[in-house]
Every structure is written in C-alpha cells, then in structure tokens.
C-alpha cells in the first residue's frame, strides 16, 4: 500500500520532470527515490535517474598544485589598503605643507614690497618738503639782502 502511494507520487513527479515543471527540490526527491527504492519503474527510465542520483559532483575536486604559491602570489602581491592610505596621507601632507610654505613666502614678499614702497614715498615726501622749506628760506634771505640795498 505504501509502495503503491510512493509509486503514484513518483509517477506524477516524473511526468512533471519530463515537461520541465519540477523544482530543484522535486528533482532532489526523485534522485533520493531512485537511490533508495527499487520499484517497478521502466528499466530505461530508471537508468537515467540512477545515473543522476549516483552522480555526486562534490567528489570531483581540483588540485592546483603550486599555482597558488608561485604564479598568483608573484603576480598579485596583496596591497594592504591601510598601508596604502597611510602612504597617500603622508604624500598629501607633504604637498600641503610645501604649498602653504610657498604661498606664505610669496605673500610675505609682496607685503615687503608694499612696505618698502610706502617708506620710499614717505622719504621722498620728506626730502621734497625739506627742499621746499630750504628754497623758501633762501628766497626770504635774498629778499632781505635786496631790501637793504
């Protein structure tokens, strides 16, 4: 009775299978069924499912030998991102300091030129005023001499 039920269930599943309507879970059930049961299923049909149920792909493993240690490691030396960031930060810092220093130097030079110019202008103004005063004194002295005569 139990076998009959099993047979009926599997027949329905097989019909769905051949029409591409089974899920992965259904197909696993079919494989398990054929692995564990020897019911009266047509011989040819059971061959295919026995093949699938006995085919355990996990048993096929690959040994890449020294591929990992030699070729891969030489070709792809791992760069630690933290180390990379540290180096990048140092470079950015050095460039920033250099820019800051150059900018300040330039600014100070410009400032010095302005101060010197102002100083020269003040000095020239002072000389000009002194000359004017001298000229005035000279003229008044000349006027006094001519008046006495």
């Amino acid at each position, binding site marked *: 009775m139990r076998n009959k039920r099993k047979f009926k269930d599997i027949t329905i599943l097989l019909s769905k*299978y*051949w*029409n*591409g309507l089974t899920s*992965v879970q259904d*197909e*696993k059930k079919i494989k398990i069924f054929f692995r564990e049961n020897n019911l009266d299923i*047509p011989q*040819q*049909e059971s*061959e*295919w499912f026995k*093949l*699938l149920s*006995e*085919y*355990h*792909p*996990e*048993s*096929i*493993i*690959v*040994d*890449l030998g020294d*591929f*990992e240690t030699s*070729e*891969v*490691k030489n*070709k*792809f030396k*791992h760069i630690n991102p933290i180390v990379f960031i540290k180096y990048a930060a140092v470079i950015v810092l050095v460039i920033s300091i250099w820019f800051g220093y150059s900018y300040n130097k330039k600014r100070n030079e410009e400032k010095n030129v302005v101060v010197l110019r102002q100083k020269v202008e003040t000095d020239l103004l002072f000389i000009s005023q002194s000359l004017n005063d001298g000229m005035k004194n000279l003229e008044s002295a000349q006027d006094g001499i001519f008046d006495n005569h």
Partner: protein
Amino acid sequence: MLFDKNNKLLKCQNKLYRFALSLTNDANDAKDILQETILKLLEKRNEWNRFDNFEAYAMRSVRNTYLNDRKKWGNARVIPIDVSLEFEEENEIEKKMNISDLRNDFNRIIAKLPEIQKQVLYLREIEEMEYKAISDVLSISETQVKVYIFRGRQFIKKQRYEK
C-alpha cells in the same frame, strides 16, 4: 591573504573546475581554464562585492574564458569524448573510477545536444542550480533556460526511452 579560508574564490573553486571540465571534457584543459579564470577574477577582486551571486559571476567567467580559448585555438583543444575517456581514466584527479564513468555516461547521453543545451542541462541536473542562477551563468533569460531544459529532457526521453 588571497587564498584564506573565507575566500569566495576558494570556496567555489571545485565547482568552477567541474564546470570547466563539463565544457572541455579534458582535465588538463579544465585546469588551464580554471587557472586563467582565477587570475582574471583576482585582477578584479575589488569588484567582487558588487555581485550578489559571486558563484554565478565566477562560473560565467569560466565559460567566457572557455569560449575565448576556443575562439583562439579553434577545435584544436576540443578532444572528442571517446578519446577523453581513455585519458580521463588515467587521470589522478578523478581517482574514483565511478564518478568518471558516470560523468562520461552523462556526457554521452547529452552529446548530440547543442552546446548551450548541454550546459543548461549540466548546471540543472548535476549542479542542481536554480533557473535564475543558470541564466546568470550563461547570460540568457530564465525563460530560455526553461525552454532549453524542457527541450533537453524531451530529447533524452525520446533518444533513450522511446526507441
């Protein structure tokens, strides 16, 4: 470390090898393709997190490498199944003769199918992958995957069971 225990690539390495083996039918060619693919994947390891299904992405890379190789070498590297049978039996990788025989039986049954249908059937029947994952690996739509599975099974049924 590139090959630490949690490395995604290491986890699916055997699956990638099996897929390469199903494409080439030759253990040495499959190894070459796998190594080439690993190098390519490592070059793009910064992009790995972008992919929801890394395994499907890696398998697609295996297939692309295989197709590029085939384009490059023509049919020179494709060994007929009968020849590869003898070769496989001596191969150290497949120490268990049983799995080798089963693999060859499977290949023989689907031998007459078009290449894409073989790949779809392999991924579904052997690797037990969902339609979505298969469509990701082979860059085809899910509907196409369903159609290929249906046609493939119908072909097997007709060839083997309705003689």
